[in-house]
């Protein structure tokens, strides 16, 4: 299957971090999200795979147009657009948005300590978190994670499942990636 990869186009003529933040606030960042063809491909895939409700919980800075020092989040807008588009592709995908700063108790309970963050969950699955904008190759990982949760099945071997089932300690996996 052709890999979906979000390409980010940025129209930035600025040089400093502050200028970049202001540019984001003014919606000067243009993001090429899903093409009609990719959206249909995803819609068909979700229709075929999803059997359970999946919730995408986005933690961001509240989409404020104000530049607030200390609350910068250059990737929040893009992350919000990604979850919005995914949420529009299936009735089984719902989107919740939380302001990280005003809803800190919810963020802490979800294990979110930085933004943007996307938590993928269902009634009986949690512990799946994406930090930063899931663009580039990680968009595919996000989509596949949504499918796994919504399908209620994953592709791990029986041997791997046995090892994981035997774990009696909490395991935290941090996988560091870049968009390309």
């Amino acid at each position: 299957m052709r890999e979906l990869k979000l390409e980010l186009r940025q129209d930035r003529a600025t040089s400093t971090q502050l200028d970049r933040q202001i540019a984001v606030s003014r919606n000067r960042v243009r993001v090429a999200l899903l093409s009609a063809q990719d959206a249909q491909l995803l819609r068909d895939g979700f229709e075929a795979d999803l059997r359970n409700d999946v919730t995408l919980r986005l933690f961001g800075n509240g989409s404020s147009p104000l530049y607030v020092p200390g609350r910068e989040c250059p990737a929040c807008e893009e992350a919000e657009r990604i979850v919005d588009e995914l949420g529009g592709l299936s009735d089984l995908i719902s989107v919740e948005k939380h302001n990280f700063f005003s809803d800190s108790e919810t963020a802490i309970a979800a294990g979110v300590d930085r933004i943007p963050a996307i938590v993928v969950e269902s009634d009986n699955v949690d512990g799946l978190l994406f930090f930063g904008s899931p663009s580039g190759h990680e968009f595919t990982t996000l989509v596949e994670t949504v499918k796994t949760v919504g399908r209620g099945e994953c592709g791990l071997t029986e041997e791997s499942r046995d090892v994981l089932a035997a774990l009696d300690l909490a395991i935290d996996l941090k996988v560091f990636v870049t968009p390309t």
Partner: protein
Amino acid sequence: MAGLATQMAFVSPNVRAQIIEVSGYQDLIGAYQIQGVPKTVINDRYAIEGSVPEEVFVQHVRRAAELAGEEMERTGATGL
């Protein structure tokens, strides 16, 4: 690695997977000594550089859990 990690978290309630697009978080690049990606860190103590097959990843997870268990025995901490 990201896909395997999320599948592990899916099948085990004891596993949490955090997929971190690190370019926006300079503090993490230094804290976790990230010089290349993917880099996987288990319980903030055990690192895997690059991509590995599923069976190798799972064995790393098991080894990391064993090490964590040994450390908890020494310190008297609890795991879950």
